[in-house]
């Protein structure tokens, strides 16, 4: 039950996920694969991190493990038994806390035990114990709306711990909190874990924060997107308590950045599910033109002078990977930067962009947009060909939905609209939902 017990003692795993697949039905009847052939196991005394960007299927996997949904293929085994529905002994902490606002702190915590039909005296004893353990005593009769975010998540933890689970599942539990509160909660949790004061044997933590993963986990599984899959597995050999300024810590963070920015086909699983075709099937990230110019300007200026280490920019700009990676990838797609090995290097055009006036910037951006984003070129071509020089959004949406989920299609078009507006290559009227070549007067 203690993190210091090394997994090398070869105990039977608490949890096994074997070749799990998950897909969702798509509008046209086909299936959208969100999780492909994922296998992992959790041994007693381990904190396992699932690290990846949003859309990499890590939360989907967590829900499979929790028994909240069933895999399309493969299986989840807990203590050797197949998981079919929410299992006793697996408890979950949610990103949005998921507290019942009409119940007090005490009632929220007691809820899990009531559902298990535990005798009333024991409910009271164990609930107060959990509340005490997590540092909430004195708040028993408060309603969630009276508490700060940090205190609410403490209730979330107490509610999960009170059922004495063997495995605690945490779905980005700190990401809705401010930096300082999150840090306090993380250290408190790790202290309790290291002292073996919590009734849990293993933890699975879903996160998109690399430093958080390195700080908390014994083992990190890095997830890739489209479809979600495990790209690599990284052991964290640093002893607790871990210090972010420790060179070993920083080196590991750097290494994970490298893993996560590795180009597909080199070292990672080749992406066979993306037919190369016309190229309009690339899902575009909603990245504003402000962020694009902002990142180019920052990297072009000293101390980076055109080439920057991603972890450094992340801390410089206070961006999490979910914010930073999409911008970096968009720059790469537009051939304004090269991202590899955890570094971002600007292309000569990007350097030129950084020094240009507003109009020059727009012209350069327009050139790159039409040349390197197939969807932009496609929309422009359709508008050029039509006599009316206009086309409804639904036309492109339908086309995109053959290749991606409706949400992804909507997102891609939204992203395209904002770039096209900045570059002034075509216009879009949200009221009528139509693209056109005319700019509003």
């Amino acid at each position, binding site marked *: 039950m203690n993190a210091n017990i090394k997994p090398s003692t070869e105990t039977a795993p608490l949890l096994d996920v074997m070749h799990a697949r998950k897909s969702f039905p798509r509008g046209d009847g086909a299936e959208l694969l969100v999780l492909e052939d994922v296998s992992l196991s959790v041994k007693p005394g381990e904190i396992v991190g699932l690290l990846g960007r949003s859309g990499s299927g890590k939360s989907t996997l967590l*829900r499979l493990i*929790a*028994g*909240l*949904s*069933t895999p399309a293929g493969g299986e989840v085994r807990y203590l050797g038994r197949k998981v*079919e*529905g*929410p299992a*006793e002994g*697996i*408890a*979950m902490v*949610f*990103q*949005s806390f*998921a507290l*019942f*606002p*009409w*119940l*007090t702190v005490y*009632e929220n915590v007691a*809820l*899990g035990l009531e*559902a*298990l*039909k535990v005798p009333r005296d024991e409910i009271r004893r164990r609930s107060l114990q959990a509340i005490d353990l997590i540092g909430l005593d004195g708040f028993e*009769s408060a*309603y*969630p*709306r*009276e508490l700060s975010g940090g205190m*609410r998540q403490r209730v979330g933890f107490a*509610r999960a711990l009170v*059922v004495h689970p063997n495995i605690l599942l945490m779905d980005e539990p700190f990401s809705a909190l401010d930096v300082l509160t999150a840090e306090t909660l993380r250290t408190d949790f790790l202290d309790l874990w290291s002292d073996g004061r919590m009734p849990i044997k293993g933890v699975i933590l879903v996160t998109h924060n690399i430093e958080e993963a390195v700080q908390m986990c014994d083992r990190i599984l890095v997830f890739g997107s489209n479809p979600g899959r495990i790209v690599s597995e990284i052991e964290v050999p640093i002893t607790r308590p871990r210090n972010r300024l420790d060179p070993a810590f920083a080196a590991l963070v750097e290494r994970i950045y490298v893993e996560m920015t590795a180009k597909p086909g080199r070292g990672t699983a080749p992406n066979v599910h993306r037919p190369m075709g016309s190229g309009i099937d690339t899902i575009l990230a909603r990245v504003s033109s402000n962020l694009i110019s902002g990142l180019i300007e920052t990297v072009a200026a000293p101390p980076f002078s055109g080439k920057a280490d991603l972890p450094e920019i992340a801390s410089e700009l206070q961006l999490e990977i979910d914010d930073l990676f999409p911008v970096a990838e968009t720059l790469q797609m537009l051939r304004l930067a090269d991202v590899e090995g955890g570094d971002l290097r600007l292309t000569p055009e990007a350097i030129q962009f950084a020094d240009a006036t507003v109009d020059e910037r727009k012209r350069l951006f327009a050139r790159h947009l039409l040349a390197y984003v197939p969807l932009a070129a496609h929309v422009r071509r359709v508008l050029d060909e039509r006599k009316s020089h206009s086309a409804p959004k639904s036309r492109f949406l339908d086309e995109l939905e053959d290749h991606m989920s409706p949400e992804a299609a909507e997102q891609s078009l939204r992203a395209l609209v904002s770039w096209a507006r900045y570059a002034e290559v075509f216009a879009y009227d949200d*009221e009528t939902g139509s693209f056109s070549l005319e700019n509003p007067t």
Partner: protein
Amino acid sequence: MPHTPTAWSTASRGAPSRFDFIALLLVLGLLAFFAEASRGVLAPLTTLDASPVTLDPHHLPMYAARTTLRMLAALVLSLLFTFTYATWAAKSPRAGRILVPLLDILQSVPVLGFISVTIVFFLSLAPGKVLGAEFVSVFAIFTSQAWNMAFSFYQSLRTVPVELTEAARSFRMSAWARFWRLEVPFGMPPLIWNMMMSMSGGWFFVVLSEAVTVGKTTVTLPGVGSYIALAIEQKNLHAVGWAIATMLVVILLYDQLLFRPLVAWADRFRFEQDPGGVPPRSWVLEALGGSRLIARFLRQLRHAARAVGAAIRTTTPVVIHIEAPDHGKQLDRIATGIVGALLAMALWEAVKFLAPELGWHDIGMTLGLGAITGLRVFLLIGLASVIWVPIGVYVGLRPGVARIVQPIAQFMAAFPSNLLFPVVVAGIVTWKLNPNIWLSPLMILGTQWYILFNVIAGAAAMPGEMRHVASNFKVTGWLWWKRIALPAVMPFYVTGALTASGGSWNAAIVAEVASWGDEHVTATGLGAYIADATSAGDFHRIVLGVVTMSLYVLLINRLVWRPLYYYAERKFRLS
């Protein structure tokens, strides 16, 4: 409610408190009321003829009690309907595909339509007993209350945050426990708001629902509605005055004893996690909450509820896959088939029933009359908007004024138009006015307030920053209305206008025909057509009129209000 509201458990031990005393009085009063009001329900129908409704004001408390009990019974029925129908529609997407449009259709059928069609069935349930007629009356009130409550609960069920559902499931709560501990609490605040609106609607039709007409005979149930009807028939202004006073008292009591406590109690179920404004309070709730006796009673009730929950739990599997198992789909399919078959059968029966008696001429006529009533509704909504939108904005921006105006508007919404007949009919007859114009305001008498309610809410929800920007840039006068106030209240206004429009169609049946003693004033319209057919006992024309009106309401909702609503929602919603 198998809940554990902490307010209940704060009762201190020791000698009976003053709260105990108040609570005891409330409970005893309630019991006496039920006993008194339900007397005579099981008596044979002939007793109604033996002791007909009289205008003696001494009988009014008893009449009021009977009416109130009917309303309460209908409200309970509406709740049962809401919890079953809406839950089924929300939980089974397949069934929902049929149940939701069906609800939409039911909502557009005028209240009178239900009475005419179901009367024989209900009377046959308790042959020769007053109870049968009571069933009809309660059902009529039910049809004026249930639909919007079901809609509201359906909406809530569909919007329960996913993570809350997941949390409940991961803690292995049974479907039964999830329903009572998560879904019902979540849907409670909007449901209570809709119950209040429903109650107002019920009062508006109180005269209609207490006169049960079968063929040539009319059963008049003792109640406020019958009292009003008789007062109008006998041209008794004093009695009308007494009726107004009684209504005022009853609505006030309902508000204080039922809705105010409910609203205060349901405040804990508001989902917004941030502390809002001043929480609503209720002296009744505080008295009950402070009472030790009540606390003990509720504890027993909770135990019972838990026992029921446990019993049901052992029979429901804990493991419920979110992907519906196959037999569920099959059940859905069967249900779909049954509903479809029933609809087809109903349509066929209606055609078979109407075809021999009515020709194209009648259909053309009802369509024409419908168009006239429709025009009237639109004009009135427009007129009401011009009056109430500015007032609503003014009031909404001043919370102090809003606190005074809201309850008054609430009372006005429940005010039956029949009570204004003396004034209107006398006016029209004396000055020889055109009834087509001067009867119209009655249609919107009860419904215009929905516009006011919603606009007040919209203006109150306007962010302070927006108002500061306006004053900072010195945006005033027409520009302020055009660019700031009107867009801000737009989504709210459309919701109100939509409700008002539907209600006005329904009200046309009581508003296009007015009488005061032997003087009858009639406007041309579909409402008058249905009302005439009803008093003549012409079943064919009633059905044709009701079907036509339902169609009009449905079409106007689909073609005008729904698109307008989505447009306003998309363009003007501040979020």
